């Protein structure tokens, strides 16, 4: 057994299920290609406006950068037990910001042109966004969650994972779209007040609208998809389809030409935020139920020591116990032990390419790491 440093983030660097490294999976290259193509479409589409309105573009980027950092930090931590691995989080984020956003630009333009030609420009002006955006954008964003699951099968094992990575893909899309809206606002205001337009756009779309925007809709769709990816049954397929339709319906509700005006933003947004919160609570409850049940079973089995399940359940306690262990090898071993135990618990959730033998391998790992840990010169109390 190797004694390399392992922490919560280390799962990202481990080969995905079946021992296939991330870069050997076709889904990884599909992800890379879609992000490149989408990014290229977005950059070529926005390049001229960025060059023409540099002050507004820089102000918009400067305002959105901290929003991006705070949003990613918060969405990664929206998990009751562990922070989502940065690698997988960035994969989802990049899909949303580059792949989904870039491909949505021509897809939305084509859809709205079709609506305009078939139902008339008046209808398109009123309802075009409410019809085209939910279909194109929710599909494109959710495909990012599917792609992540295909390239790293352990990343999505249930609704909570689907919720989290869906939210991150949606948030990436949201940030890119907010930047586009900064440029659009500059044009709509006749390029007469670039900075003012950037601040106005930020105020309306981030301060006033970020709470119930793309992240929330894709989180809902992602949670449903997570159910299906965790365990493929007829029920979970219905759940996934229902969640996807709900995400599209909420998106359509947001874009619909009803309850217009700044004062109505909250009235339109609250149902979306509420649906995202309820979905999160349900996914969290399901996860914690499984967590507690598995921790108990493994304790009875003798794999975990009594009380270990409680330590595992809280980031703060895991961090605290790590500081109580001498730095160096013991601390690294303890981190590895906890990561393996968490992996063992989450393995039972299912997911793509689920191998029933993995649990026994992980149990063996836990026993071996624990043996190394307690055979050291100063065995930590916690193990």
């Amino acid at each position, binding site marked *: 057994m190797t004694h390399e440093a392992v922490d919560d983030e280390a799962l990202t660097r481990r080969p995905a299920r079946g021992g296939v490294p991330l870069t050997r999976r076709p*889904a990884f290259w*599909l992800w890379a290609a*879609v992000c490149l193509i989408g990014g290229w479409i977005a950059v070529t589409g926005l390049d*001229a*406006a960025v*060059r*023409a*309105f540099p002050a507004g573009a820089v102000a918009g980027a400067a305002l959105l950068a901290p929003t991006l950092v705070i949003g990613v930090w918060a969405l990664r931590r929206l998990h009751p037990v562990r922070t989502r691995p940065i690698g997988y989080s960035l994969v989802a984020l990049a899909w949303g910001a580059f792949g989904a956003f870039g*491909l949505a630009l*021509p*897809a939305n333009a*084509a*859809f*709205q*042109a*079709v609506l*305009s*030609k*078939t139902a*008339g*420009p*008046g209808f*398109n*002006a*009123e309802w*075009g966004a409410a019809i085209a955006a939910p279909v*194109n954008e929710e*599909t*494109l964003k959710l*495909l990012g969650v*599917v*792609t992540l699951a*295909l390239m790293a099968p352990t990343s999505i094992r249930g609704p909570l994972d689907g919720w989290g990575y869906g939210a991150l893909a949606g948030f990436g899309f949201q940030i890119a779209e907010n930047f586009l809206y900064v440029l659009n606002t500059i*044009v*709509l*205001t*006749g*390029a*007469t*007040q670039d900075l*003012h*337009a950037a601040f*106005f756009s930020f105020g309306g779309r981030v301060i006033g609208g970020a709470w119930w925007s793309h992240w929330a809709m894709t989180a809902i769709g992602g949670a449903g998809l997570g159910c299906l990816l965790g365990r493929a049954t007829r029920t979970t397929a219905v759940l996934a389809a229902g969640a996807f339709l709900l995400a599209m319906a909420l998106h359509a509700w947001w874009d619909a030409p009803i309850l217009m005006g700044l004062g109505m933003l909250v009235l339109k947004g609250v149902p979306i935020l509420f649906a995202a919160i309820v979905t999160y609570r349900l996914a969290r409850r399901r996860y914690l139920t499984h967590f507690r049940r598995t921790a108990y079973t493994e304790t009875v089995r003798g794999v975990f020591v009594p009380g270990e399940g409680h330590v595992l359940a809280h980031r703060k306690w895991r961090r605290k116990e790590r500081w109580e262990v001498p730095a160096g090898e013991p601390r690294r071993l303890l981190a590895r032990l906890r990561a393996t135990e968490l992996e063992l618990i989450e393995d039972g959730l299912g997911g793509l390419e689920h191998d029933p033998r993995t649990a026994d391998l992980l149990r063996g790992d836990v026993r071996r790491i624990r043996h190394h840990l307690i055979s050291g010169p100063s065995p930590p109390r916690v193990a």
Partner: protein
Amino acid sequence: MVALALLVLCSVLPLLNRALGSGGRRLAPGTIVSIGTEQNGVRPVTVTVLRAGWVLSEADTSLTSNAKLLSDDIVFNLSVVVPLSSLDAQKLWGGLGRIVAAGGRARLATAPAPVVTAHGMTGLTGRIIGRDRVGVAAVFATDTLGATVTAAGPPRAFGAAAAEIEAMARTVTVMAP
């Protein structure tokens, strides 16, 4: 499966759009094209079509913000401007110059001259020049709303229609909320 879904989404809609053709709607002389956010069933910025032959490009028109009219190779764009603070024509002309230049194919050529619409509204007008296109631009501003017009085409075609296009630009109305 993901690749197939992407392919369907990103190819079916553009193909359908192409299959539907240019999607132009012929406009009869006297037709009033209105743009801007609808309030009480009325869009605040209008332009009147003066002769037959103009087509509303449905694919490139979003009535909440702009209308694109085509006549052979000539493109007539009417856009609404929603200022965040007080607006005047001079400021709007400067902004339009930057927007036209951002397109990369043309720029506003000269200092603008005053223009008065058929309804008595004063604005500014000037020439657009590009490598293979010439045209005319105009801006009209009220305190709370503005409109910009850009019309351009190949030099010969535009030269023949210039007087009519300038007259059309003078039919613009801006109804401030």
